[in-house]
């Protein structure tokens, strides 16, 4: 799409945005992939429409406030990126645009404080854990609270588990085959500490030493995708200082959103002095399932103990794994490597579950509709277990599956593998 975006005044992020707009041929192949288009059926809430809106705002032909409601409804799921034959990097466009536009937004005091609280609590696991406990206490009050506060409360699990700090170094068991650095993640430490515990056990069992470098923090994705670019840059640079890619075979994440965030660092720092460092860092980043799958493909994965009975697992593709990172085959291959496990495909599998970072808090109504649709689709396969590789999806799917009256366990892919290794499947 031809554009007159004033790149010279916008810098590196301007180049990222102009390149994405250029690449769009407005063919409409993205429309059926877009969750908000599926719900709302209008052009402004489609990827093609949003690209036009961003272009118009950047060119000065449309006030930001007019475009904002439609851009805010974008989940950032990037299903459109998978669907796009022209190769439009839509994820980079919307992320860069949010970073550029946020300082110009006029938000209410309530909105500002809500966003401030989210961005403070998310990267601070201890604070998040405290907040979650307070929230749990407040759950019975939910019906009388305003919708903006009800959303997050609805998502909290029935019990908030105790924090389980991870050791700085987890030695390999048996012969050491590799050495990796691990990003521990933020919210999931508070909400699902077993994700990390299982990850460390599975890696150790496969002869991999795991190091959790000091000084690491939040990946910055939540800040970046909500437009808090300065905040995000601080977090990104802290991680570039903490992780030394040359020291490790890989830098692993077990949360799809965080992994995608880490892989975005070169885009975030495009045209800045740290760009080369970011590229070296991102080249080593892998999702836990990608890493273990390379072991599997080389015949080096420790064979899991067969399940005690035939089990069906409905695998949910997290958007930030399937669309943002292009990781689809690896988690399925790992689950299939467990004798007795059958992997089920979910109808409308490419449609976002509605969690999408802070979307549940900012667009509770659309998030709820998508969550209910996802739960219904998953349950239509009548699985024994539900697997996903992302804490956001996990929380959302668990909440909606329970709401639809199903007790089916929702687990991280690695938890299932861990259970198999321990003979508990």
């Amino acid at each position, binding site marked *: *799409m*031809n*554009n*007159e975006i004033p790149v010279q005044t916008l810098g590196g992020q301007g180049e990222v945005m102009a390149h994405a707009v*250029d*690449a*769009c*041929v*407005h*063919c*409409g*192949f993205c*429309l*059926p992939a877009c969750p908000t288009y599926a719900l709302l*059926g*209008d*052009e*402004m809430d489609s990827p093609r*429409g949003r690209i*036009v*809106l961003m272009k*118009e705002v950047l060119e000065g*032909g*449309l006030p930001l406030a*007019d*475009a904002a*409601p*439609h851009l805010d409804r974008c989940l950032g799921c990037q299903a459109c990126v998978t669907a*796009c*034959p*022209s*190769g*439009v990097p839509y994820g980079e466009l919307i992320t860069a645009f949010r970073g550029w536009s946020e300082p110009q937004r006029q938000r209410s005091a309530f909105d500002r404080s809500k966003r401030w609280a989210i961005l403070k609590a998310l990267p601070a696991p201890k604070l998040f854990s405290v907040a979650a406990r307070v929230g749990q206490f407040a759950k019975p009050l939910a019906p009388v609270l305003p919708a903006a506060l009800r959303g997050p409360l609805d998502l909290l699990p029935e019990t908030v588990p105790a924090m389980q700090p991870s050791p700085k170094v987890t030695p390999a068991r048996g012969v050491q085959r590799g050495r990796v650095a691990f990003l521990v993640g933020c919210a999931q430490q508070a909400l699902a500490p077993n994700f990390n515990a299982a990850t460390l056990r599975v890696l150790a069992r496969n002869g991999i030493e795991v190091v959790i470098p000091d000084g690491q923090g939040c990946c910055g994705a939540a800040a970046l995708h909500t437009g808090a670019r300065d905040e995000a840059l601080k977090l990104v640079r802290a991680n570039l200082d903490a992780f030394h890619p040359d020291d490790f075979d890989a830098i692993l994440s077990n949360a799809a959103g965080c992994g995608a965030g880490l892989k975005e660092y070169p885009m975030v720092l495009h045209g800045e002095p740290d760009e080369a460092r970011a590229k070296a860092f991102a080249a080593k980043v892998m999702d836990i399932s990608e890493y273990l799958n390379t072991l599997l493909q080389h015949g080096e994965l420790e064979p899991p103990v067969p399940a005690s009975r035939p089990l069906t697992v409905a695998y949910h593709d997290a958007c930030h794994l399937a669309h943002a990172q292009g990781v689809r085959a690896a988690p399925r291959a790992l689950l299939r490597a467990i004798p007795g496990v059958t992997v089920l495909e979910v109808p409308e599998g490419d449609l976002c579950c509605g969690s999408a970072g802070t979307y549940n808090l900012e667009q509770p109504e659309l998030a709820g509709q998508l969550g209910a649709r996802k739960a219904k689709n998953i349950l239509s396969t009548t699985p024994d277990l539900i697997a996903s590789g992302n804490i956001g999806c996990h929380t959302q799917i668990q909440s909606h599956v329970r709401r639809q009256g199903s007790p089916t366990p929702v687990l991280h892919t690695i938890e299932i593998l861990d259970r198999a290794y321990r003979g508990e499947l």
Partner: protein
Amino acid sequence: MSTEKLALTTNSGARKPASAGGASTALAADLTRALGPRKVLSNLSERLNYRYDAIQFGATPLAVVLPESTEDVVAAVRAARAAGVPIVGRGAASGLSGGAAPLEPGLVISFTRMTRLSIHPERREATAQAGVVTLAVTEAAKPHGLIYPPDPASFRTSTIGGNLAENAGGPMCFKYGVSGDYVRALEFVDVDGELHRLTRDVFDLAGLLIGSEGTLGLITEATLRLIPPPKFTRTLMAHFPEVGACAEAVSRAIAAGAVPSKLEFMDRACTNAVEDYLHLGLPRDAEAVLLVDTDGEDLDTVQDELRLVEEACVASGGTVRRAATDEEGALLWRARRSVSPALGRIRPQRMNEDIVVPRSALPDVVREIRALGDASPFPVVQFGHIGDGNLHPNILFDPRREDAHAVHDLAHRIALVAIRHGGVLSGEHGIGSMKRDFMRDAVDPETLAALRGVKRALDSSGALNPGKILPAEEVMVDG
């Protein structure tokens, strides 16, 4: 230079909105009174997104209506007529001739919320509102053992209403025909807001509406014929060291008696653009790739036909690979369907032709177009439903660096190649505004006058999708 040529670029003079002016506000207020606020879009941010299709940007509409029923369409048309503004119908806007891009500010009626669909297996029919997505018809029919064959490349996105307005084809059209061949009955709203229901007997008025690109009426619902799917399908891919050889293979195969269900061709640039997207291992060095399906009730016949095609390809110097599995076949077809948008990887914009020529002329036509492309500064690529003689030469260009006049001239020369070989300007994408100027070359003045007569009979005020298909009448200027 005419406005439609300017409109080739997204930054044309027609582009900038007239802002939320008085006319817009008054029309939007009328529409909102008639339809309620949910169905009427009047903010600039909303209207800006209804000025384009998959090839062209036009004028920003004064208002947009998202009807949910035929009654809503009637009300919207009456309000637009009362306001004296033009009306443009729009499906998913995946069209490739500028058909859904308004050339002047007016009302856009977008059918994406009219999605009621019912299957009547006992009559082998589907009843679909205009906004039903094409693929949805086959998906709904499948449990009843039926399919809807027309399958334009955009079938996941495009709507039935849009398909009928453009009389869309698709890979299946060689054996199974185009969208219009599956219409038993139509419901449409005329320019005065009157509702009509048509079948195909007596005057085939439905046939007139099909392919009229929204210039004669607004199709709101259609009764579509369904068929049982073929029991067996086999796929092969052949590649050739020269484009003309590929066309020769097609003529040879059909002359030998094969009736493939799909026969599709893409040249080297197309194959490479798709390969960049899907990474299938397509032959990047081949000058032309041919994709062929044969299908039918009897496996032996299906295999025999595939063999005939294979022999024809080899005799023309091609290399043949049969798809080992249905999945491999499906992937190859996904590759073909992605060609058009994947060309965006080469240049941001393109002029898209849709010529149809007699099959016997195919080798000469593809070679002549290849030569025109090679002699021009622009990348010219070719692909299409070659079994029908339907080719899509595309001129790829960057409007910021390259001259839109030169693009238009080259497109004109390509159109003349088709006409010289006894061909026509449009197989399935319509004339729209993109090929309107070439109509004088393709259609004699008497026939053009007859077409104008039809337009006047059904839309005397010229309010329906103005500026499309028919070139402006010559104005006699005194000495």
